[in-house]
C-alpha cells in the first residue's frame, strides 16, 4: 500500500482561495528502461488523479511516463462549504489509492 500525504488547511473563511497539496509514493517506472540483461522493465505509472470536494469533481490530472517518481500535485480551489475533500490515484497494475481530508469553512 502506497503512502499518500495530503495537505488541506483545516479551517478557512468562506470564499477563500486555498492551496491543496498532495504527495504520493510511486516509482513511476516509464516502461522505456531495460534491465542489464536487456529486458524491458514494464511500465508502472499512475495514470489518473481525481480530486472531489463533497462529491463534486474539482480537479483531474492525467499522468504520463515523463512524470517523476513520488509525484507532487498542488493546485488551488475556493473554499465553499465544510466537508470532505477526497483524492484518488489510479494507475497500472491495479494501482488505486484513496485519501481524504476534512475542511471546516466558517
Amino acid at each position, binding site marked *: 500500500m502506497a*503512502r499518500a*500525504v*495530503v*495537505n488541506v488547511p483545516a479551517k478557512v473563511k468562506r470564499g477563500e482561495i486555498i492551496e491543496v*497539496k498532495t*504527495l504520493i*509514493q510511486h516509482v*513511476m517506472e516509464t516502461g522505456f528502461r531495460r534491465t542489464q540483461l536487456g529486458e524491458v522493465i514494464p511500465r508502472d505509472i499512475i495514470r489518473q488523479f481525481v480530486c472531489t470536494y463533497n462529491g463534486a469533481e474539482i480537479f483531474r490530472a492525467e499522468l504520463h511516463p515523463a512524470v*517523476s*517518481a*513520488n509525484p*507532487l500535485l*498542488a493546485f488551488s480551489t475556493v473554499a465553499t462549504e465544510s466537508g470532505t475533500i477526497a483524492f484518488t490515484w489510479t494507475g497500472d497494475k491495479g494501482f488505486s489509492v484513496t485519501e481524504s481530508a476534512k475542511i471546516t469553512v466558517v
Partner: protein
Amino acid sequence: MSVRRGGWPLPALAMACVLLGTGWGVPAAQIPAGERRSGYEFMSRETRAMQDDDATNPGMLWVLDGETLWNRKEGAAARACADCHGDARGSMKGVAARHPAWDAATGRPVNLEQRINACRSGRQQAAPLAYESRDLLALTAYVARQSRGMPVDIVIDSRAKPFLDAGRSAFTRRQGQLNLACTQCHDGHWGEKLAGIAIPQAHPTGYPIYRLEWQSLGSLQRRLRNCMIGMRAEPYAYGAPEFVDLELYLMWRARGMALEAPAVRP
C-alpha cells in the same frame, strides 16, 4: 571541436594544463567556520521550498514508513524498536547528530545505518537490513528526522582520532583516473560551477537525502560513491570502513551546523 584519434582533443589538453597551473594543483585550505554553508544554500528557491514543507518533501514518505517499522515487532526476539527505546521523538533526539559514533563491540566508529543493523541483529535477533534497502533508509530517515535543527555534535576522543585522521587523508588524497582529491572541489572551489551545477562544500547535514536525480531517498555512502565514480575512482563497497572514516571526517568538519534530514537535493 576536432578530436584526434586516440588522443585528447587539443582544447581539453590546453584546459587541463591551465587548470593544473591555477590552483587545482595545490591542496586547498579548510573552510573557515564563518564561511561554512549547507548544500541547502546552493539550491534553487523551488527546491528549498520543497524541502521546507513536510507536505511536499518526498523524504517524509520514508519517515512515515520508518515510524511504522519503529513500532513493528521483528526477529526471533519479537521486539520492536519502540519496546526498548520508547517514543523516538524523545529517545532518538540528537542521535543522528552524534553519528558516526564510537562502538565498543567493533572497536571503531559506526554510522547510523550500522547502529540500526547492530540493534537488529543483537537485540531483535533479526537479519540485518541491506544497505540502501527501502526499510533501512526508512528507519534511518525516521531516526535522523528526530534531530532536525540540532547542531552536529561529533566529539573526537583519543580512540576515534586515528579514524578521523584516516577520513581526513581520504578527503585530501588524490585518487581515480582524474587524479582528484575531494578537497580540491569542496574546499577550494565551492560555490563555482561544475558542468553547470554549483559545487557545494560537502557538509553531510541532511542525510538520508531525497535526491531529485535519484528519484529516491539515498544514504551518504550512495552520494560518496557518486563522487568517486565521477573522479573515475573505484568506489568502496557499501558499509566499508573507509567510507565510515570519511563520513566521520565529513560530520566532524560540519560540526555545529544544523541537521536538515531528510533534506532534498537536486
